[in-house]
């Protein structure tokens, strides 16, 4: 199994407070890795390190290494724009642009220099199909994305992320604002996407982690407590803290 991302002693502080503390972990290519842990344990901070989103927050200070295909994304010569193309992100709340469905998906390719209408049309169709949304919107591509349901908006955001041909997709609680039907569609989509992409998902929902993830990592107080195959973590966790968290004794 090839390693897509590897972190080495990765830490992030916001001012005096350490949000994550010395995380060393390997993320395998074309697998879904779930990051679980109680609120404030550093889950979101951790995945935001992987495309340097924390830098947007002024006080964030990062140390250690995060390697993408062996290259340290925190080295001075690493192109951040290229990094964010290669490592896309889906957020908790669907955040489509107030534009048409077509323009949402075409937005990234246009920024990266694709302006030919036929190429854009192909990109939009391909990625709406990958996000399993094409059938529902193909006859109204010029309608506002804001008119879609929450679940459709989230799949549109996934299509938008896919349109710039990323290698890794980070998902920060992508279903927390969705109903069970929309959640099931996103979960099924995550499994399909893992054939082509490496997916890292932060979730508070233990059952979601156990359903979609090949690997699961448990963070607690900013530290990595346990990492392993999802089956092992949920059937026979090695750490007592993991056991207590996933069985609902605390959290």
């Amino acid at each position, binding site marked *: 199994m090839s390693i897509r991302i590897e972190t080495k002693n990765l830490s992030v502080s916001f001012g005096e407070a350490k949000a994550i503390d010395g995380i060393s972990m390997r993320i395998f290519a074309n697998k879904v890795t779930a990051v679980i842990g109680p609120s404030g344990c550093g889950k979101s901070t951790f995945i935001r390190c992987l495309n340097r989103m924390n830098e947007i927050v002024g006080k964030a200070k990062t140390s250690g290494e995060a390697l993408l295909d062996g290259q340290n994304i925190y080295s001075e010569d690493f192109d951040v724009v290229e990094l964010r193309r290669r490592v896309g992100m889906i957020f908790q709340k669907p955040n489509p642009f107030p534009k048409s469905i077509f323009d949402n998906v075409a937005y990234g390719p246009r920024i990266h220099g694709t302006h030919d209408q036929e190429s854009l049309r192909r990109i939009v169709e391909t990625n709406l199909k990958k996000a399993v949304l094409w059938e529902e919107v193909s006859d109204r591509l010029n309608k506002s994305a804001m008119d879609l349901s929450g679940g459709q908006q989230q799949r549109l955001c996934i299509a938008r992320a896919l349109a710039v041909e990323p290698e890794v997709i980070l998902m920060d609680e992508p279903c927390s604002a969705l109903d069970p039907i929309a959640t099931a569609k996103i979960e099924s989509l995550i499994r399909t996407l893992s054939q082509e992409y490496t997916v890292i998902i932060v979730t508070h929902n233990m059952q979601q982690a156990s359903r979609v993830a090949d690997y699961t990592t448990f963070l607690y107080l900013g530290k990595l407590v346990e990492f392993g195959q999802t089956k092992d973590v949920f*059937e026979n966790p090695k750490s007592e803290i993991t056991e207590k968290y996933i*069985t*609902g004794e605390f959290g």
Partner: protein
Amino acid sequence: MSRILDAGLEELSLLLHKMGELTYEAVSLSLGSCIEGRGSHKQVHELSDAVVSLSDKVESKTFELIARYQPVASDLRTIKSYMKISNDFSRYGRYAFDVSYICERLGGLCNCEEWVQKYIEEMSEKVLGMVRLSIDALRNHDHNLAKTISESERQVDQMYLTYIDKIVELSHTTNKCTVSSILVIRYLERIADHATYICESVVYLVTGEKVSLG
């Protein structure tokens, strides 16, 4: 603070303890009466039916707990082990039923030669000891006690094979006695196997370790 799931696990645990005691009674009664030539089939049948009924309740409860609470880690191992143990207890009941049935149909072992009676009496004591051990290990979630069953399992297996060899060698034994004693001894060996499986489940339940104690 206790979790909602805890009440369900407690209920399952009580059902299993009840099953354990009923099966012990069934096995003990059927073996004792078979050796002494007393009829007990009706009573054993009733006990065995009660065990099956409890097993249905365990199955229904485990499915409810899985569907409603999606248990993981030690909770999941507990439920998985309880389902398996419930099946093993049902098998205790079934073999007790078979022993009492065969002894009622062919006559008790009191009609057999003295050495046969003594042999089966000794094996019965060992097997009953294993049944008790499995029930106690489960009640106390005692994986260390569970692991001690290996030696008895080995001895019972050896007694079973030795008996088969002997009975073949001694052709003067009456037919009825040969048939009933072989069947009883076979059931005893199977009961011992299930006692061992229960102990393996107890070890898995407590430690997550999958062991073979047989």
